[in-house]
């Protein structure tokens, strides 16, 4: 499996430095003044910008927005996710991706031709896949396996973190996850829905990788996290 799949995230970088941040609760005034523009997670009320989510407030130029630090996964197009097959229907597979609606993987979207009679030989109920969301319409989410690095996840194990911490685990252009891969020799896939798959040469390496990811996901506020993780590896993972 390859790293490329993590690099197309257009997500905000949580690791960037200089921008000051403070914790904001819903209904709290972030800034006052006509000059500001309400961004994600905020609304304008009279002269001020008010938060509508619990998280870190950030000013980028004139735009003020709130980066959520807790909360369920909200699917978006092009997200790479990890899910579990929960049903096989006539036209494809139903996949649980830990969000409000189940996702559907059409038989057409499998990487090679699959005979309808042999669908369970390719993906059986209970098996875990890494897939990409290619469309969200109405209440349905459509998945595809037609991209590099996607497919059935055999061996290894999966676990879950808070989905809003995923951008931090990936890091800028995948820097954080590549650091952990490099240090532990494990193969890691980070799903945007907070599910993470690890497969490594030994059990110790896998546990180390998992602990490293949990260490990163626990830190809400720290800037320069990549250096901190490097230090953490050197100091013997305390």
């Amino acid at each position, binding site marked *: 499996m390859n790293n490329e799949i993590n690099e197309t995230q257009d997500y905000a970088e949580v690791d960037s430095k200089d921008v000051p941040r403070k914790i904001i609760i*819903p*209904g*709290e005034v972030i800034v006052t003044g006509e000059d500001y523009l309400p961004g994600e997670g905020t609304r304008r009320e009279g002269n001020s910008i008010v938060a509508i989510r*619990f998280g870190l407030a950030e000013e980028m130029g004139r735009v003020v927005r709130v980066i959520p630090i807790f909360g*369920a996964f909200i699917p978006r197009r092009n997200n790479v996710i990890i899910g579990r097959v929960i049903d096989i229907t006539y036209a494809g597979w139903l996949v649980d991706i830990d969000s*409000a609606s189940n996702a559907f993987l059409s038989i057409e979207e499998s990487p090679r031709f699959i005979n309808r009679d042999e669908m369970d030989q390719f993906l059986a109920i209970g098996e875990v896949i890494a897939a990409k969301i290619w469309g969200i319409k109405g*209440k349905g989410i459509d998945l595809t396996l037609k991209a590099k690095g996607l497919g059935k996840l055999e061996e290894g194990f999966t676990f879950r973190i808070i989905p809003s911490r995923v951008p931090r685990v990936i890091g800028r252009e995948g820097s954080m996850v590549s650091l952990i891969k490099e240090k532990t020799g494990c193969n890691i896939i980070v799903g945007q829905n907070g599910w993470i798959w690890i497969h490594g040469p030994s059990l110790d390496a896998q546990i180390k990788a998992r602990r490293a990811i949990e260490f990163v996901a626990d830190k*809400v506020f*720290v800037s320069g996290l990549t250096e901190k993780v490097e230090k953490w590896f050197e100091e013997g993972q305390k």
Partner: protein
Amino acid sequence: MAFKRSDGRKLTELRPMIAKVGVVPNADGSALFAFGSTVAIAAVYGPRKLHPQHMQNPATGILRCNYDLLSFSVYDRKRPGPSRRSQEISKVTEWALSPALYLESFPSSVVDVQIYILQADAGTRTAGINAASMALAHAGIPMRDLICSVAVGKNDKEVIIDLTKEEEDYKEGEGSTDFAVAKLANSDEFSLLQLDGKIQPEVVSKAISMAKDACIQIYEIQKKALKDCVEGVQNE
């Protein structure tokens, strides 16, 4: 002044409050809120898929609350399971919380709020609402504002805030009145006004302004708890 409250509080004094966020690790958001010996915990799950399907609303997400007293929370063991009373309180809690939520971005889904009373000493619905509003914020649900809730009431002719069970059972003179109030923290919009007992129309405005002042104190406690829970994660 002749009137004295049984626990020696001033007329406008709240019981000591405790607020904590993140008490249920398996929930998406959770909180604990206590007024003296009334303790409520709330857990929020979702937004998630709504079952039964006929309740789904394709225009917006819905809020579903469940309030219950745990069997050991009162002196005479409460028979577990839903009752007439708990169903009513679940419903009014839902109504009290929903004006603060933006659920339009989660069509056909549900946000489940479970409120359990660990210890009951009057004011359980208000403690439950306070806990639930913190838990919703903790779960990252888009909200207009936090909800603060408190009970005002009357013992004989005196308007008092945050009644205990003993005060709720007051029998002398005009007897006891219980008036549960919930409002949006940063505006004068009320989402719950539930009056039980007798009160003169001219006293109502006094009671409400007393509740407003109390909500300011409650809001500060809720705010502090939410902000501290992030600090705590950082210090680990």
